[in-house]
C-alpha cells in the first residue's frame, strides 16, 4: 500500500498549494486574508452604484509584493474592444451592445494604510493586460506600492468608486426594477507564490479570489427586497426614503446581491439527521409562485446528496434567487447565494428548473468551498459539479426527467413522454463528440476556443468522471472526492491535487488515464470490426470476433460475446493494440458481441459501432423511424404549402 502511494505521488505533478500561508486563521475556517467592509448605494434613477470599501489584505504568498492588482470586471463593458467583448465576437455573438447597455467601474480614490502610514495611490492606478496585452481592456488595475508588503504582513486598502450598472451582461445588471450585482466592486487579485494571479475578464471563464469576511451595507429604495451572500444582520431606515441592509458573511471569497420590489420571500429549513440544518431563503418571481416547492426540493436534494457524498455545507443559510425574465442572471453561483432559473410554463416532467437549481447550489461545494481557479481550470468547478449534479438529478428526480423541447420563441414546451433522459447522453455527449479534439483540457480555460470551450470544461470532465465512477466504483470515487473536498476546502487546489487524491483513493496509478483525458485531446472509439460464427463440423461452431481501437486514446474494455443459448464469454482487453481477435469453438452459434457493454467508457465518441449481431434489426428500426420522420415532413410540407 505504501509502495502504491509512493508510485502515485511520483507519477502525479507533485501537488502543492499555490500559497504558502493558506492555513485557516485560529477560530476560522479559512485564511481570511482578503476581507471587505463595504458601503454601497444604489441610485435607480441613473442606474449607478456608489461605494466605499476597505479591504483588509494579508500577503499569504511566500514572497513580498511591491504592487497590488485589482479586478474591475464591469470594465469589460466599458468599450467594444475589451477582451470580453472581443472574445464574445470570436465565439459568434456579434451583437453590438445598445447605447444604454454599457457598464463600467471608476476608482475615485485609492489609499493604502500600513500601521499608521497612509499612502494615497490614486495617481498610480493603471491598467494592465496580463493575458493578451490588449491595451483597450481595463478589467485589471495595477497599483505600484511605495513600500512592499512582506509575506504574512497585512495592509488595509481604502477605495472609493462609482459604477454604471450595465444592461445584463455575464449575469449582472438590471432589467426594469430587478437588479443583480455580481463582480460589482473593486476586488483584489490572488497573490500566489509564483506572483499575482489576476486575469482579465474573459467571455468564457469566471473568477478566482481569496477567502475573507465580508461586511456589506447596501442602501436601496425602501420597499426593495434584498438578497445577498452571507446573512442579513440588520435593516435600518436611511435618508431620502432608503433602507440600509447589512449582510455579514464569513469565510467566503465573493459577495453578490440582488434587489427588487417584486420578490416573493419564502423560507424553509433543511433538516437532516447527520448534516447541519440550513435555512433556505427563496426570492421568487410572482409569476413563478406555483414553483416554490420545486425550488426548495431541488436545493434540499443538493444539500442532502452533496452533503452526504462530499462533506457538509458549513454555512447556516443559503439564498436561492429566482431571476427576473430577461435579466440574464440565470444559473450563476456565488457564496451562500445562487440564481436558479425557470420559465413561466415549466412542466413537472421537464426538470430543467431542478437541474439548474442543483447545479448552482452544487457550486457551493465546487467553487464556493473548494476555491479552484476558474480562469485557468474551469473544469475543476464546472466539470466536477456537472458530474455531481447529474448524479443528484438521477437520484432525486430521475423518474420525472423527460426530454423536452420548446417552440414558438421558446415559450411553449413539449415533453416527450417516452424519452427518459439518461445520464450517459444527458451529459452533453453529443456536444462533446462534435468538439472532442478542440482543446486539451490542460490548456488554461481562458484560452479555450470561445464557442467550444464549454463542451470540454463541462461535458468532457463529467464524462470522464462518470467513466471513473463506472471503472473504479462509486464508493472509491466518492471517497476520493470527499477526501479532496475535506483537504482543499477554503483553499485553492491545483489539478494535480485532484488527480493525486483520486489516485490515492483508487490505490492505483491513474496517470495514464489523466494523461489522456486531461493533458491530451485524443478521442476514444472502440468498436467491433467482425463477427462470424460458422459450422465447423460435428455440431460445432467456429466464432471469430475482431475488436478494434479506432481512436487514438486507450482504455481497458470488456469484449463480451453472447451465444444463441444465452451463454457469454467475457474477455478483458487492455485496449492498447489497434485490434484484437478472439476465436471460440463452441457447440452453439454466436448471436452478438459487444465492446464495453456496460458503457464504462462514457467518452467513447461512437457507441453504435461497439456491438455487432448476427440477427440485425436495423431494418425494423430504420423503417419505424423513417416513417415517423416522413409524417413530420408531410406535416411540414402541408404547413408551408398552406400558403400556396
Amino acid at each position, binding site marked *: 500500500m505504501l509502495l502504491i502511494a509512493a508510485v502515485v505521488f511520483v507519477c502525479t505533478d507533485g501537488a502543492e498549494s499555490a500559497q504558502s500561508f493558506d492555513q485557516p486563521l485560529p477560530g476560522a475556517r479559512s485564511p481570511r486574508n482578503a476581507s471587505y467592509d463595504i458601503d454601497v448605494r444604489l441610485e435607480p434613477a441613473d442606474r449607478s452604484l456608489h461605494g466605499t470599501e476597505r479591504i483588509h489584505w494579508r500577503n499569504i504568498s511566500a514572497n513580498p509584493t511591491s504592487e497590488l492588482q485589482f479586478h474591475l470586471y464591469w470594465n469589460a463593458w466599458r468599450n467594444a474592444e475589451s477582451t470580453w467583448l472581443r472574445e464574445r465576437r470570436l465565439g459568434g455573438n456579434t451583437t453590438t451592445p445598445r447605447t444604454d447597455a454599457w457598464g463600467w467601474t471608476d476608482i475615485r480614490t485609492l489609499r493604502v494604510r500600513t500601521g499608521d502610514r497612509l499612502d494615497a495611490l490614486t495617481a498610480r492606478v493603471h491598467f494592465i493586460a496580463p493575458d493578451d496585452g490588449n491595451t483597450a481592456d481595463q478589467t485589471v488595475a495595477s497599483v505600484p506600492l511605495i513600500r512592499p508588503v512582506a509575506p504574512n504582513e497585512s495592509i488595509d486598502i481604502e477605495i472609493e468608486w462609482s459604477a454604471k450598472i450595465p444592461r445584463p451582461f455575464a449575469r449582472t445588471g438590471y432589467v426594469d426594477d430587478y437588479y443583480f450585482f455580481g463582480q460589482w466592486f473593486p476586488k483584489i487579485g490572488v497573490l500566489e507564490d509564483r506572483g499575482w494571479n489576476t486575469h482579465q475578464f474573459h467571455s468564457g471563464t469566471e473568477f478566482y479570489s481569496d477567502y475573507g469576511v465580508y461586511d456589506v451595507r447596501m442602501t436601496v429604495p425602501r420597499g426593495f427586497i434584498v438578497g445577498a451572500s452571507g446573512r442579513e444582520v440588520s435593516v435600518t431606515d436611511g435618508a431620502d426614503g432608503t433602507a440600509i441592509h447589512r449582510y455579514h458573511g464569513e469565510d467566503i471569497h465573493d459577495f453578490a446581491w440582488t434587489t427588487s420590489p417584486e420578490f416573493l420571500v419564502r423560507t424553509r429549513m433543511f433538516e437532516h439527521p447527520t448534516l447541519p440544518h440550513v435555512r433556505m431563503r427563496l426570492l421568487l418571481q410572482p409569476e413563478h409562485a406555483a414553483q416554490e416547492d420545486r425550488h426548495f426540493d431541488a436545493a434540499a436534494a443538493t444539500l442532502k446528496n452533496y452533503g452526504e457524498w462530499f462533506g457538509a455545507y458549513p454555512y447556516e443559510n443559503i439564498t436561492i434567487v429566482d431571476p427576473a425574465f430577461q435579466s440574464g442572471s440565470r444559473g450563476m453561483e456565488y457564496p451562500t447565494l445562487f440564481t436558479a432559473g425557470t420559465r413561466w410554463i415549466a412542466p413537472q416532467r421537464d426538470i430543467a428548473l431542478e437541474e439548474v437549481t442543483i447545479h448552482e447550489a452544487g457550486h457551493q461545494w465546487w467553487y464556493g468551498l473548494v476555491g479552484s481557479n476558474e480562469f485557468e481550470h474551469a473544469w475543476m468547478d464546472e466539470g466536477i459539479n456537472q458530474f455531481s449534479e447529474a448524479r443528484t438529478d438521477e437520484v432525486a428526480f430521475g423518474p420525472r426527467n423527460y426530454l423536452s423541447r420548446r417552440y414558438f420563441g421558446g415559450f411553449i414546451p413539449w415533453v*416527450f413522454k417516452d424519452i427518459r433522459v*439518461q445520464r450517459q447522453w444527458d451529459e452533453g455527449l453529443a456536444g462533446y463528440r462534435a468538439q472532442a479534439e478542440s482543446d486539451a483540457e490542460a490548456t488554461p480555460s481562458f484560452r479555450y476556443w470561445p464557442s467550444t470551450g464549454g463542451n470540454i470544461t463541462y461535458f468532457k470532465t463529467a464524462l470522464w468522471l462518470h467513466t471513473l465512477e463506472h471503472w473504479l466504483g462509486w464508493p472509491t470515487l466518492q471517497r476520493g472526492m470527499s477526501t479532496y473536498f475535506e483537504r482543499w476546502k477554503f483553499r485553492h487546489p491545483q489539478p494535480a491535487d485532484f488527480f493525486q487524491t483520486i489516485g490515492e483513493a483508487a490505490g492505483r496509478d491513474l496517470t495514464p488515464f489523466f494523461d489522456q483525458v486531461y493533458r491530451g485531446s485524443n478521442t476514444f472509439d472502440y468498436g467491433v470490426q467482425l463477427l462470424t460464427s460458422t459450422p465447423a463440423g460435428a455440431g460445432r461452431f467456429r466464432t471469430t470476433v475482431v475488436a478494434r481501437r479506432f481512436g487514438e486514446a486507450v482504455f481497458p474494455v470488456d469484449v463480451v460475446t453472447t451465444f444463441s443459448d444465452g451463454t457469454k464469454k467475457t474477455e478483458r482487453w487492455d485496449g492498447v493494440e489497434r485490434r484484437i481477435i478472439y476465436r471460440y469453438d463452441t457447440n452453439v452459434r454466436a448471436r452478438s458481441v459487444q465492446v464495453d457493454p456496460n458503457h464504462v467508457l462514457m467518452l467513447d465518441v461512437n457507441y453504435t459501432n461497439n456491438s455487432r449481431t448476427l440477427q440485425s434489426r436495423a431494418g425494423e428500426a430504420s423503417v419505424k423511424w423513417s416513417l415517423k420522420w416522413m409524417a413530420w415532413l408531410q406535416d411540414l410540407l402541408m404547413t408551408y404549402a398552406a400558403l400556396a
Partner: protein
Amino acid sequence: MLPWRDGWRRIAAAPAVIAGVYLVTLLAAAPLATAMGSAMSEHLGASLAADDAADSVNYDWWQEFASQGSFLNLNSTFTPSIVGFAATLDSASSLLDRRPIVPAIALALAFYVLAWLFLQGGILDRFARARRIGAHGFFAASGVFLFRFLRLGLVAGLVYWFLFAYVHEWLFAKWYVNATRDLAVERTAFYWRLLMYGIFTALLAMTTVIFDYAKVRAVVEDRRSMVGALIAAIRFIWRHPARVVGVYLLNAILLLVVVAIWAVVAPGAGGSGASMWLGVVMSQCYIVARLIVKLQVLASETTLFQQSLAHWGYTAGPVAIRPAPPVVDSA
C-alpha cells in the same frame, strides 16, 4: 354557413381528389424518407443499438446519427420534434418563427408547392362544376391553369417574400424586441409574442385568401390575366367581407379541431410491429384530415364565389354540346 356546407358536399362527391392530393403529399415526402431510412439502416448496420431503436428510443444512437454529415444536411432534421404532436408544433413554429430549412427539405417543399399549383386548376374546376369531370378533364384543367397559376405564384411569392423578409423582421426583431426589452415578466412578453403571431398570421391569412379567390375567379371565369384575377379577387373580398371572413373562420376552426384531436391521439415513439403500423395509420389519417381541411378551404371559397357572384352554370369550360341524334332529323 351555406357555402361551407356546400363545400363539404362537393368534397364528399370528389373522393378521387382527396386520394390524389394525399398521393402527392406521400410522393413528395417518400423519396426523402426512403433516403433517410437507408441512411439509418446503414448507420445502424449490424449494431445492437438497432434493438433499442426498434423497440423504443435509443437516444444515444439518435444523437450520434443526427450529428453525422449527410447529403443536403438531411440527418440534422432527425430531431425529437418528429415524434407525435411535436411534429405539428415544430412545423407551425418553424413557419411563424421563420426558422431556416435545410436544403433537402427545401427541395421537397419546392416540388410540393409546384404540384399544388398544378393540381389546383383541376381541383377548383372540379369543385366549381360540382360534378364528375373524369381524369382527363381534371388534368386538362390542371394543365390549362398551371402557367396562369405560376404567374400568379410569382406575384404571391413576392408578397410572401416581403412579409417574411421585412414584415416579420419588423414585427419580431424590432417591435417585439423593443416592446419587451424592459420586461421582467415572461407572461407579459408571451402576450406580446402572441400579438405578433396574431398579426403575422392575419397578414398571411389575408394574403392567402386574396390569392385563393384570384385562383377561384381565374378558373370559374376562365380568366387569362392573373393581374385581372387578382384585382377581381380583391374587389370580391371588398364587397363581401363578412361572408369571406365567416367562411375563413369556419375553416380555421375546423383546422383547430383537427389539430386538437391530433394533439390528444398522436402516438409517441412506440415500438416496432403492430404498434408501429398503428402509429403510421394514425399519422396518415391526420395527414388526410389536414388535406381535407385544405380542400374544404378551396371548395367553400369556390362555392361562396359562385353563390355570391356567379351562377351555377358559370364555369371555366364551355358546356359540351352534343350533336342531335339522327332520329331528331328524321322527325
